[in-house]
């Protein structure tokens, strides 16, 4: 049986979107959603509709910008790109997540060590 999918932690989606845009350049909403799903190995439960809320949120913070373009199916689509402010924010977020992951790893390792002793 397949493992149940991971729920997204509060605030993680915004970082994922930023990171995706930073790594892959301008993308439309569906592209971002697909890329995140692929990268996660389809392990996270992504309600794709929430991407659009994240996009408008990031736009309002001026961390990303949007521009109309034409998508691969030849339709008008909105392409999002990370801004300079967005990159700065991403760097800060990366550092934060790194620290958090380290701390989590150590705390969780504590339990494992205890069991061995």
């Amino acid at each position, binding site marked *: 049986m397949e493992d149940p999918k991971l729920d997204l932690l509060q*605030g993680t989606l*915004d970082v994922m979107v930023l990171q995706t845009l930073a790594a892959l350049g301008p993308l*439309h*909403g*569906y*592209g971002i*959603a*697909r890329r995140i799903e692929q990268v996660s190995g389809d392990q996270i439960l992504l*309600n*794709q*509709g*929430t991407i*659009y*809320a*994240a996009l*408008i*949120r990031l736009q*309002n*913070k*001026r961390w990303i910008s949007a521009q109309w373009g034409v*998508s*691969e*199916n030849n*339709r*008008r*689509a*909105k392409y999002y790109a990370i801004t300079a402010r967005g990159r700065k924010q991403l760097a800060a977020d990366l550092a934060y997540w790194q620290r958090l992951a380290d701390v989590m790893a150590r705390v969780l390792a504590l339990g494992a060590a205890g069991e061995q002793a």
Partner: protein
Amino acid sequence: MSSGPMELLRRFGSLFRGRKLDRDLDSELANHIDLAAADYRKQGMTGEEARRMALLKLGGIEQSKEIQRDARGLPAFEAVLQDARYAIRTLRRDAGFALFVTLIIGLGIGACATVFSVVNSLLVRPLPFRDPSRLVWIANGTDATADMSARTFQVIPMLALRDRNSSFTDIAGYFAFYGIGDVAFADMNKPERLTGVGVSEKFFSVLGVSPHTGRLFTAEECQRYGSVVLLADAFWERRFARDPHIVGSTMRLGGKPITVVGVLPASFDFGSVFAPGTRVDLFFPFPLTQDTDRWGNTLAVVGRLKPGAQLTTAQAEADILGKQITAENPRRNSIQPSLSYLSEHVSGQIRPALLILAGAVLVVMLIVCANVSNLMLARTAARQKEMAIRAALGAGRGRLARQLFTESLLLTGCGALFGVALAYGATFGIAHLTAFDLPLLNEVRMDGRALGFVALIAVITGILLSLAPALHISLPHLSTSLGRSGAGGSREHAWLRGGLVMAEIAFACVLLVGAGLLVRSFVNVLDTRLGFRPQNAATIRIDPNSSYETEARKIAYLNDALNRARSIAGVRGAGVTDALPLGRNRNWGAAAKGVDYQPNNYPSAFVRIVSDGYFGAMGIPITRGRDFDERDDAQSRQVIVINESMAHAFWPGENPLGKIILGDCAKEREVVGIVADVRHLALEKDAGNEMYVPMRQCTDRPSWDLVVRADLPLPTLASAVDYALRPIAPDLPKGGMRPLTQLVDRAVSPRRFIVSLLSGFAAFALILASLGIYGLISYSVNSSASEIGVRMALGASAFEVQRRIVARTLTLAAAGMLAGVVISWIAGRSVGSLLYGVAAADPATFVAAALVLLGVSALASYLPARRASRIDPMICLRAE
């Protein structure tokens, strides 16, 4: 995540770009589905399957839009706007309902705001003086019901109190026995009688009143009488159009030229504070001298406490000083200062009445809430389906409750606007009432505090009103109601609605009983044996002008005036008095000759100085002896007429005629007549001792009121009297004739004020309660139409159907009434002080209120019951 000001600004901005943002998102989402579907097709799904999968992954188009909308704007604010828009739309669809509810709430809030304004100005708002919390009313003695002569001070003891106390920065007073219209203003164009009050030095400075123009009296001016005058603002405006040059000029007052030294500010209204219902035009200095000391108790006294001084310590000190001063002045009247804050003195008498009004208006508002709640509930029941649809479209329970709250807030808001308009009108009307002797009434107006109060009430009502319907939205409920077709109401609705109607009936019962008790008291007051007949009689001031200097000339004028009045066709009697009933308040010492009285037990009596024919003109029955006649003059034997109470008090069981009374104006007077008791202080107060002295035997007459009894309409009589008297009294005021009934009207005006307001509230409550019953029964008839149809198909007669419905209503009404009677019984005690001749638990009133309620309930339920009995069973059953 922090949201900076920039982001807030953008979010706010998106409120106004909602439509464009929505369109953009629409095309983005459509494209998203397209792209996703294309991907799924590549994985081998059919077109339909791929699309479905794409939608599933997205999580629904509408839901995505909703999430995005929340993220981009200010969701709370937007929701409020949306709710408001939606509420307006639904209410517009239901305009009748909205209008009706707005109207009811408006009336309720209007009533609340009006009563609040009255209470606010009469009880809460500080008196219009400087630092009014330190002003103290100093009365003589502790018996609040005693007449004014017993509650005022003699000059020398008052001065002693002023000089020796250490609690007050100063003490001042005014001459309490000024008469309305005692001052003749001889103006070329329009002679008029004015009311002037003599005030002691520092009276205005104690109150903290500074003149608007000119100056106050100097210490030197306060040493003697009648050379200077201060004008009241209203009088200055009325007669001199606020001409500032009036200061320094002279007016002919009482036949003497008197200099105007200043004008008092508009904020100072002597009448509204010290003499409700009286218009005071002028202020004169009242000298505090040995001379005025001889007049006996004359001064009404106010003091200003020193900063930090307590009323209780001031009272303790005044007690000691009072005893000392009384002991030092054995030949003067005793003093026993009794202190109370001026604000309490002013509002004290009306306080219970106002608190009752406030309670009543609160009850009215509760009935309004119950009624509107009921309507809202009925509406919610009809809207179950709409709510279910909205819930299915993603509206949470909180959101639906918020929607209901917005709607009721919108309704109460509209109601509040209407109510505020009503209250502005009502307070304006009340402030301009002149026929009511209530203190500070002209100060009543809507102010910021009242508006704040209205806003508060509107919000509270809004919450209360949405409470019952909101409790009713339970989501599982809703899915079942989606399946149902009709406007099905649930059972728990029924008890809630029944309970609300019961509460309405109970509250209406309380108001009806309260109003009933007060109306009965009012009727009792009007029914009291006044001792005179006010009907078909009128009165006018005819004081002789300054050209009549000697006593002989004045008496000649009086005889002339009486003869002229009596010769008018239709006039049945005319007489002159110096004190009409229900106006003046003064007592003179009077004793039976040959009786030794204790110093503090010397009897007194209310005195009137009257002409012959006065008793006939007033309709006061002479029970024994004779009326005065023209021969009772200065040269003849001194005589007196007394009332029955006095005769009984002085000579119980004896014939009083021929006995001697020792009193003022003459050493000894022989009793020549006994007349009925006349209620002279208030309709509710017994007459006590009264005595009448013939005008020709006493020169101490402050005023001359002519009383004429005639079978003529007032305007005819007025012009006939004017025509007859003008030749000898050229400065007779025009339009000065007033019916005697007006005296009674004025005396009962505070009672009438309360009674009419409370009756209005009760009537409103009754109407609301009957509407509530009608609504409830109509609703239940409609929703149980099929049951009724079955019953009728099975042979129930129309009458039986009606009887069942009416009987059910009456059970409800009876339960409500029972609660109402119990509450009234308990609350009745608080009305006690306002009742007259009726007990708080008056069975007749309770029964009458119950009967009225039963009748109204029966009627309100009969109309829908009749409709029910006309249900055609066939149609009804087919509709199932």
